[in-house]
Structures are given as structure tokens and as C-alpha cells.
């Protein structure tokens, strides 16, 4: 924007445009706080739109901004509300901005997730900017992982026996680390063996220049293998509450490190949590999740949740090289037969189903619960997962897929 105010008329325009651009900047901030990915280029484009007649009617401007700023369907559907709230002063904001920290504290099962990183509950009632001010301070309390040796000790401790916050923080960090290590190793093994199938003519000609262009030694290539995709379904019901926090942390690490991964949370219903989990800061990601986990404590409907998954999500998230990991104790309060049916349907779709049962690591535990009995015939690997060690034992298995 030019700033050469020689004529008075120009000054006035400048003044107006300063006001407008100030307001626009505030709007962009609001959008960012609502999870829109808005960059500088979009801001400039928006400014140029406002100066070129699109601002004449609110409806037109809204529609134009909607196309410009939305990047996905969820944005698309929320945009009108945010726009109206900001520019026209209608009260919609509370709903669209609910992702913050509002209700988390009084949620029983996910309380443990918070582990000492209590957000100051007072400020959430007001308005935007949940981030900058309070986050770093609370993150400080969580503490960094210091050295590997102490995590080593933790490797065989059952998660439910972790008591003091420091230990929990360490277990979380170790779980995140573990996910990262699994990633690098899995991908390297991916690349190890590859032999060509199709002829690569470009390289063949290049290689055979010394033979005068006669293709003697052939160069071949093969289509790249699809990377393994992990889909994690985590039981967040009351009976699992001692384990959810560590697994959430593990899933957060998996989503961060794997290029292809998806995560779902279920108790009485199913929630897709990949987006919430993609938050870089783990504590904040878990915070966002506590909202999604509402309703915990009312039993576990694994069958119904799987049905929802098969129906609405499976086609999108599962491809031919997918492994589904279900983390649950298998206490089904709904219809166990339905669970069996849905497991069968799921088994047809994906390459492997891994069922992690934290209780399987307990002494004297046998899979007697109705749910787990119905599900087991369709499970490829049934493993305990109550310690970090048992989690890391998964990696060689997944690497073979």
C-alpha cells in the first residue's frame, strides 16, 4: 500500500483505509484463532477485494471472503457464523469458538490428561486468543524429559501405577518418542527392497549412450509402495480412564510422526480426533480432546462406534496398506453380536487389526468379557499394552506389514 499523502483527499482515503485495514487485520486474527489457515497472501488479497467493490454489500463480501479463507468443509460451514459475528455483530461466536478450554476441568475420565497443566479457567469465558499468554507458562510445569535412563525404569511400570505428575510426564514423553522412532524405522524398511517392473525409458537411454543408443542394459522402475497407514481407535470410557492419557499422548506422537495416520476416540459414540490431535503442542491437543470425549462414563458401545466408523469413515481413511489399532478393554455394554459383525466387516477392509488391551498384561487376566470374546476371532494381533515396553514391542510387528 502506498503512503505518499501529498494531497488532502488522499490523506482522507488513507485514513479510511487505515481503519478498514485495522478491522480486517482483527478479522484475520479471529479467523486464525478459529483454526483457519490464513497467510499473508490471503490478507493482501482480502484487502484488494475490499478496495475493488466487493465491500459494497455484506452478502457479497461474505461470499467472497468465504471462498478466499476457507480451506476445507468444516471451515466452509463455520465461516458465515464467524463473519456475521465479527462484521455484523450477531451472537454466534460462542459456538464457533468452543474449541478452547471451556469444559475440560469437570470431565471425569479425562481429568488425568491434564496432569498439572491446568489452564487458568477464568480467562476462557471472555474472547479469542487462548494461546500466547497462558500457554507457555503452563507448559513449563510439565517439564522436559531429562535423559533416557529414567525413562528406561519406567518401561515396565504399568501405566495405572504411575502416580506422581513427574513420572506421568516422563511416560508421556517416552510414548511420544516411541511413536517417532516407530515412524523412522517403519519407513526405512519400506524402502529397503524394491525391484523394477516397468521400463524406465528415460534412464535406459541415458545409461546406454555409450552403446550408441542401443538399449542393452535396461533400467526399470516400480511404483512406489504406499506407506503404511495407521488408524487408531481409542476407547475413552470410564473403565479405561487410567490408561487413556498415556495412549492419547502416544497417538499424538503417531499422528505427528506418521505421514498417514488417523485417530478416533470412542465411548458411547465415535469422534474423529485427528484434527484436534494435529495441534503441535501436546498439552493443548489433549485439552481440545477433552471436549470431544464428553459423555464418557455412560458405558462403552464398541459395536455401535465401529458401525459408525465402518459406515462413515472407513472408505476415506482405510486403504490397502492400513493397519487398524483398537485400544480397548473390551467391556462392551451394548450389543456384543453387533460388535462381532462390525469387526468382521472391518477385517475385510484393512490389512491387519491389532487389538491392544491394557488389562491383558495383568496377572491372571483372561479375555472373558462378552465384547472381547466376540471380537477376538477377527483380530490379527491381540497384545497387552499396559507398559511402554509392550507398546514398543508392536513396532517390529507393524514393520512387517
Amino acid at each position, binding site marked *: 500500500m502506498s503512503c505518499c499523502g501529498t494531497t488532502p483527499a488522499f490523506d482522507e482515503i488513507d485514513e479510511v483505509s487505515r481503519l478498514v485495514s485495522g478491522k480486517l487485520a482483527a478479522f484475520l486474527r479471529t479467523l486464525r484463532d478459529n483454526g483457519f*489457515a*490464513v*497467510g499473508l*497472501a*490471503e490478507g493482501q*488479497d482480502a484487502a*484488494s*477485494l475490499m478496495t*475493488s467493490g466487493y465491500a459494497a454489500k455484506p452478502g*457479497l463480501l461474505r*461470499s*467472497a471472503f*468465504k*471462498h*478466499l479463507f*476457507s*480451506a*476445507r*468443509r468444516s*471451515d*466452509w*460451514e463455520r465461516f458465515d457464523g464467524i463473519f456475521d459475528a465479527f462484521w455484523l455483530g450477531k451472537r454466534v461466536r460462542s459456538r464457533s469458538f468452543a474449541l478452547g478450554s471451556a469444559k475440560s476441568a469437570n470431565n471425569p475420565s479425562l481429568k488425568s490428561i491434564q496432569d498439572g497443566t491446568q489452564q487458568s479457567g477464568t480467562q476462557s469465558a471472555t474472547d479469542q486468543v487462548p494461546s500466547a499468554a497462558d500457554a507457555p507458562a503452563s507448559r513449563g510445569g510439565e517439564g522436559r524429559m531429562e535423559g533416557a535412563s529414567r525413562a528406561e525404569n519406567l518401561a515396565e511400570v504399568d501405566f495405572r501405577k504411575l502416580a506422581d505428575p513427574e513420572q506421568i510426564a516422563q511416560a508421556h514423553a517416552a510414548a511420544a518418542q516411541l511413536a517417532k522412532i516407530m515412524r523412522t524405522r517403519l519407513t526405512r524398511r519400506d524402502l529397503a527392497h524394491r525391484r523394477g517392473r516397468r521400463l524406465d*525409458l*528415460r534412464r535406459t*537411454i541415458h545409461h546406454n549412450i555409450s552403446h*550408441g*543408443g542401443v*538399449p542393452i542394459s535396461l533400467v526399470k522402475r516400480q*511404483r*512406489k509402495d504406499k506407506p503404511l497407514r495407521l488408524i487408531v481407535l481409542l476407547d475413552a470410557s470410564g473403565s479405561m480412564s487410567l490408561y487413556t492419557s498415556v495412549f492419547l499422548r502416544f497417538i499424538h506422537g503417531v499422528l505427528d510422526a506418521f*505421514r498417514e495416520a488417523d485417530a478416533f476416540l470412542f465411548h458411547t459414540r465415535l469422534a474423529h480426533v485427528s484434527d484436534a490431535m494435529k495441534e503441535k503442542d501436546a498439552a493443548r491437543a489433549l485439552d481440545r480432546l477433552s471436549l470431544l470425549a464428553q459423555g464418557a462414563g455412560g458405558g462403552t458401545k464398541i459395536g455401535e462406534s465401529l458401525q459408525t466408523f465402518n*459406515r462413515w469413515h472407513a*472408505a*476415506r481413511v482405510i486403504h490397502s496398506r492400513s493397519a487398524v489399532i483398537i485400544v480397548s478393554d473390551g467391556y462392551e455394554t451394548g450389543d456384543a453380536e453387533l460388535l462381532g459383525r462390525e469387526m468382521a466387516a472391518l477385517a475385510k477392509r484393512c490389512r491387519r487389526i491389532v487389538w491392544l488391551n491394557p488389562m491383558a498384561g495383568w496377572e491372571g487376566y483372561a479375555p472373558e468379557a462378552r465384547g472381547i470374546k466376540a471380537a477376538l476371532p477377527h483380530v490379527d494381533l491381540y497384545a497387552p499394552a499396559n507398559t511402554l515396553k509392550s507398546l514398543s514391542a508392536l513396532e517390529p510387528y507393524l514393520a512387517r506389514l
Partner: protein
Amino acid sequence: MKNREEIAEALAKSGYIADGELATAISLMQRLRRPLLLEGEAGVGKTEVAKALAAVHATELIRLQCYEGLDQSSALYEWNYQRQLLAIQAHRGDADSIEDQIFSEKYLLERPLLAAIRRDEPPVLLIDEIDRADDEFEAFLLELLSDFQVSIPELGTIKAISIPHVVLTSNSTRELSDALRRRCLYHYVDYPDVEREARIIMARIDGASASLSLQIARMVESIRKEELRKVPGVAETLDWAAALVGLDVRDLHDAREIVHETLMCLVKTQEDKVRVTREVAERILGKVA
């Protein structure tokens, strides 16, 4: 450059009944020179938007169908290796001149992306089902869409003669990268409402009367509300309408038997077929005035 009203009018003339916001999107495309990303369920007419756009601008439509494993050589350019080999054989021993010769335009095969930037008149470039292509290709595409130039090592850099109007479509079988999303304008194509769907039927199917079109649109809308595995899109509606018109149906209530028999145009999986029983269809038909 056309303004919004002219675009809406031109769209209607080309046979595409757009919702109000699409015209805005298209005018923004011109103004901001950004690609348009269309998302929506299968069969809601995403690809048709590109065709209509080509009609609006009275220009050529170049289509790149994405699939898994799509790479540069089938999207951008490829040397004609067979001809090159032949030329090498034919001009044996004349190394210098043959090299210049086989890496010239004559041996270059233009693929859709290269073709799109080398037209005198800006064409409409439709990149269909981008979600089916690999991540790597998406990244490559991003680069092309921001610079509009291509470098071919043997030939040098080819700059765009004209900047094409780019439309990308996605069925969201895979999550697209944030970078690509941010680069594009976004438009979500939803199922049309009853009135618009009726207008679409009338525009596309010869011989569909206003009352029949409305009945069909209402019926389809109710069927969409049933919990189906595969929800019928506009394409299915049009198929069904064509079938009904072809069978000389004037009013759905007078031709219940035909309605049942032709429902296969809409309901396409065994599971859904079981769900939409005769009774369900009757009930829906009863509600359609």
C-alpha cells in the same frame, strides 16, 4: 473480465444451474488469479463446473484426471522415446547434430499441464480428483500453480504464454495438504435444494415438464434423507429423470410400478436396495405432492 452478474448469466446459458455463490467464486478466480478447489460428494457436479466455466469463457477445456501413481511424465511432458531411438539409429555416427535434433520440440510429447500453459488463449485446466494423486504430485503441482513455468532440463525453461483458469476437484478420499488448500479458493459443492435440482433436471433432460421435475427432485431429496450407504448425486437424479421421461411418465403417482422398477438408477448398492423397500418408497412417494 466479466463481473458477477454476467458470469451468473453465462453459466445459466451454458446449462449449468449454479447456486449464487459460485458466480462469486468465478469472479474471484479472475481477479485474484487463484485456482478454485471444489469439494463435495461424488456426483454433485464438480466436474460440470469446469465444463461450464470453459463455456463461460468460450475457451478450451484441458483435463487432467488424477490417479494413484500419476507422475510428471504423464502429467507434464515426456520425450517421445520410440522416435528418439529410431532417429538415433537412422543418423548413426553424427553425434552432435543428432543430440540437438532429438531433444527438440518435435520429439516432445505435450501432456495436459504443459499444454495448458502453452495455449494462446487461456484455457480452463481441470485437475480432476486431485485427492487420488500422491502427495509428491500435489507438491509438484503446487509449484507449477504458483510459478506457471516448467523447466525441461534438455530444452530450458518454458514460461506460460497464458495463465489458465485452474479448477481442482476432490472427493476427499485423502486429506489434501494445507499448502495446496491455502493456495486455492475453496468452494463446497453441496447437494442442490429441491427447487434448483428441479431446474437442473429441466435444463438437462429434454421433455421433462416442470411438475415432473419438481416431483423427481422432491422424491430424490427424501431418499437422500434415508440412511443410505451411497447417497444419490445429481448425476443419478438426471439418470433417473431420463429413464422416467424415456418411459413416458408424466406423473410419479400414476406410474408407481415404473417408479419402483427404475429406482435402481438411484440406489446402487445391495445394502441400500434392502433399505429402500417397496414400503419405504411408497411412503416417500406419498409425501411427494
